[in-house]
């Protein structure tokens, strides 16, 4: 199968491209700068450039779409252009080129209202309740993708939750940097259970979704390790693996949410290049439970995570050594 993987310069996109290539498929990657994944061919371009997308998609059987603007803050227009516009163009192009399969890589935040998620499955994406521009635009995009599901184009949405691992510049690096400078508090009691996804497991799940898309198209699946942990324990585990001291100070969850809201307001008035130190979204993420029912995911994807949480932390520790 000829497969196009978009967004392969990111940690997850690269791992996905490698996993699909190692399964024997002919993989082309598409992103703005070279991804250099062994066994794949780089095609350079932006998903906001329809011509480049057309060129990349020509002659492929399937596309795995990861390219997105992922950030806690930023210009709403840019989120809209990349996440919504890019996905819309990609779908249009895929149809035009007779591409038969689309794996849309999404996020559980598309269905997250800010309340605790305790053992739920993949609820429908809902832009009206999603928290923040990233989640909102991904929700719109996932709905576009699933709306395009048809006999000629099989679409499945996969939502890996909190992907982390060696080389991760998003989650792990931020946690470690804040812990190192003493800016990482535990919110509330730190007992809220959160489920995360080790990078290799996220990649193998997306690769599995590609293999299974003809049987399961039209659905959304949340992917996790299936090993929820109290958030403080998870943060401490990452800190220990990176060789920094785990957070030792607590902030009441309510205070953090209020502070996050205030900080967001300031950042909106005075937008800068840097990210706000705390957002309401982040405060919610760190003080409410979010773990998922993985039964349908594992059954339908015929997949189980190969790397346990403990093994993942051990590999992370090696990467920091």
């Amino acid at each position, binding site marked *: 199968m000829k497969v196009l993987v978009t967004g392969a310069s990111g940690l997850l996109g690269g791992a996905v491209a490698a996993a699909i290539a190692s399964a024997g498929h002919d993989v082309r990657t598409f992103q703005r700068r070279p991804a250099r994944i062994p066994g794949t061919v780089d095609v350079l371009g932006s998903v906001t450039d329809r011509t480049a997308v057309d060129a990349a998609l020509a002659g492929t059987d399937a596309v795995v779409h990861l390219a997105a603007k992922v950030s806690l803050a930023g210009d709403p227009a840019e989120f809209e252009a990349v996440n919504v516009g890019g996905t819309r163009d990609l779908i249009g192009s895929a149809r035009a080129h007779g591409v038969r399969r689309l794996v849309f890589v999404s996020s559980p935040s598309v269905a997250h209202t800010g309340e*605790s998620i*305790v*053992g*739920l499955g993949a609820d429908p994406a809902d832009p009206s309740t999603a928290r923040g521009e990233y989640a909102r635009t991904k929700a719109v995009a996932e709905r576009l993708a699933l709306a395009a599901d048809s006999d000629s184009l099989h679409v499945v949405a996969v939502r890996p939750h909190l992907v982390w691992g060696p080389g991760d510049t998003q989650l792990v690096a931020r946690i470690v940097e804040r812990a190192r400078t003493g800016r990482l508090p535990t919110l*509330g*009691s*730190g*007992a*809220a*259970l959160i489920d995360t996804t080790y990078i290799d497991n996220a990649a193998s799940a997306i690769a599995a979704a590609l293999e299974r898309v003809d049987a399961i198209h039209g659905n959304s699946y949340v992917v996790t390790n*299936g*090993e*929820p*942990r*109290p958030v*403080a*324990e998870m943060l*401490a585990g990452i800190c220990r693996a990176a060789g920094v001291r785990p957070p030792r100070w607590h902030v009441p*969850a309510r205070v953090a949410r209020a502070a996050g809201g205030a900080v967001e307001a300031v950042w909106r008035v005075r937008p800068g290049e840097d990210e706000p130190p705390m957002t309401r979204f982040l405060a919610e993420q760190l*003080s*409410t*439970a979010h*773990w998922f*029912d*993985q*039964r349908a995911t*594992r059954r339908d994807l015929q997949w189980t995570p190969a790397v346990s949480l403990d093994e993942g932390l051990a590999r992370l520790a090696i990467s920091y050594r």
Partner: protein
Amino acid sequence: MTLARGGPRAAASPPPLGLPGLDPAWSRLVDSTDALTGSSVTWHLLDTGAALEALGATPVGTIVAVHGNPTWSYLWRRLAAETLRRAGEGGPAWRVIAPDQLEMGFSERTGATRRLADRVRDIGALTDVLDLDGPVVALGHDWGGVVAMGWAVDHPGQLSALTLLNTAIHQPEGSPIPAPLRLALAPGVLSTASTVTPAFLDTTLALGHPVLTAGIKRAYRAPYLHRDRRAGIAGFVADIPATASHWSAVELDRIAEGIRHLGVPSLLQWGPEDPIFSDRYLDDLIDRMPHSDVHRYEGAGHLIAEDVDYAGALLDWLDARRETPAPASAVTGAGAGAAGSARRPLWSNLDALSASAETALVELAPPSGSEPRTISWSLLSRRVRELASGLAAAGVGAGDRVSLLVPPGADLTAALYACLRIGAVVVVADAGLGIRGLTRAVRGAHPDVVIGAAQGLAAARALGWPGRRISTTRLGPAQRAVLGVTTSLPDLARRGAASELPPEPSADAVAAVLFTSGSTGPAKGVVYTHAQLEALRDLLATQYGVGVGTGLVAGFAPFALLGPALGARTATPDMDVSAPRTLTAEAVAAAVAAVQGRVVFLSPAAIANVVATADGLADDDRAALSGVELVLSAGAPVSVELLDGITALMPGATAHTPYGMTEGLLMTDITLDGIRAAGSASAVPTRDAEITAGGVCVGRPAPGVSVLIAPLDADGAATGLPAAAAGVTGEVVVSAPHLKQGYDQLWLTDEAAVRDTAELSPSRGGDARWHRTGDVGHLDADGRLWIEGRLPHVVVTADGVVTPVGPEQRIGAVAGVARVGIAGVGPRGTQQVIAIVETVPAARRPGLAAPELAAAARSAAGVPLAAVLVVPRLPTDIRHNSKIDRARLSRWAERVLAGGRMSAP
């Protein structure tokens, strides 16, 4: 009173559309001949006949459902829906006919005033017109219950069952009618309250538990929106025969007598929170129809049809009746006669030893004084005989329920055996239930007589418990008046000395109602017959070698009471029975010395304190204790360390710990050595993965006991067929001659406790009774039973079912861990397992476990743990302080692990 108060005329009509839960397709208008006027009259009624026909279902019979006042057939909408749902799924198809009584609901307003006899004839005229095929089940609520009973009495050929929700048929002489109705009947109040204002209607609609939704209230009010339409409500209230001279009293008496002779099964579903039809009316109905199946729903009230799933229960009951079409009389007579060998009643030793001057009882600290009191067999025997005769002479008879609020001791023992001897049913509720639990238990059991010490009677008075009151001691006239006491045990004994004993009760007569601890839910009354208690006595005698002349020290109330039945010389140690933790080693030694005790029965909490106070023992105390041959810990599991501790005090004794429950007090038994052997056996690796589930080994079944396991399915429900296969985890199902007869007034609970046991091959004879214990465990290859937890505490993860005790034991072995509770959070089927740990030293506040402890717990647990939490103290049951309240832990863990505040569990 005048009869011309019926109100204006109005034609019948269908109800308005859009009433919640009511399908307009069920509504019909049907004409019949008015029993009162002889002219034609039009009914509105619900009839599911057409809907059944549309489903292609052939009715097995008809349920004629009669609403009361001031409701209408809307009351029965859930029954109509449920019968159609079941018929649609291929179940038995019951047609429901639910008329609006004339002048009520949407039936015709004729302007006539109808009396009870008219209403009974009216419904008869309607069922004649409808030309019902097949058997008819009469169903009624409130005053509709009276009409349904009247129909039942008049249609014996069609009637197949009588089923009632809160209602009444008899107003006892001299007892006031319920206050709300007294008010409604007061001159002037009736017309204003019932017709001018809809207050009577509103009062009734306010009785829902939980409160009715606005939509349902609107639906109930729909036919009564205007004063003109409410005349029937007033007419109905005026028709209540509050006095013997009332115009409807004759008809009421006719029906009340008639239901005694119906000869069909009956089901009474009852909401005890009913200010009008209180428990005494239920009691009266049971008196008239003693074969009735009864389910009393704690927390439900007058509008029971809104409060609980009465319809599902009713249809389940009808199904059960269809499967086993037993004649009504067989329901109570089923059983258990001591076939073959001659029966030995519980009081046989009292008769055999009636001339013996040997010691029967020693009270080390009698309630009456500080000096130990010794009672000989002849004295005890005479006292029991006199009390039995005296109670009989005072009108207490076979089947009467007697609540004993007497502290353990000679008074209680004598009263207990006297009641048993005359066939009265002893109601025993433990003060450990707490005052609310006790009140609920006593009210539910509805005793005819309360025998109590002054303290108990004061509580009975204050809390409004029912029953005639008898004091244990003679009281002054003032106190008698205050407590409502009619007589005392000494007075009864004197009266009994001159009178004859009544005949002995039969072996299958009910002997006692014992209340469960309530540690596993609201206390339930457990019914025992004489034969079953006799079997228990015989088993204790065999299992522990207790017989005539055995010295027995009883620090555990239930077994103390059986001392005289066993013929044992029984000593009650100096202790506060409501606080077994107060029993000291010295007190046990004194009791042992007093009766040359060979056998000692103690509760787990008592054992803990006895071991803890061993330093206070003098040399002769230790000498006395060295003569003990058997020590038994009953009531809850006890640790090897404690059993070690107690055998160190009693070096000649074998320590036993039985497994049982209020429903069957001794099912399996194991000795300390047996526990040790099982411990080393469980350490041996086994190929059978199920065995590694772990658990507490409670030994092999006692003689005559069968233990089976109903395997758990993937959802953690015990749906498998009970079997004796080793290594399979499931619900423990037991059978024994001394097993309970059933639960008191809890038909649904009864059914649940014997679910899927009818087909089990009985181990003995044809009358085996089985009981689902609610415990989860497995049998091992040596036939030993291992308990893995309670069924509701099973955690159902995505990878399978986890029973709590195994992980608790394994984590409990981690250094620094005192006790552990396993909880599940999240939706069943994808739950996460959580360990909640009590540490040494205790944590100062609840929170996440330290990383080292969490890691150690995780590697020990044997199952994946999502979180390890520490708490200063695990919540436990009040009575034994040993059963960890896992349900509460789960609720707490669910909250804090979802990001809630870290409070104490």
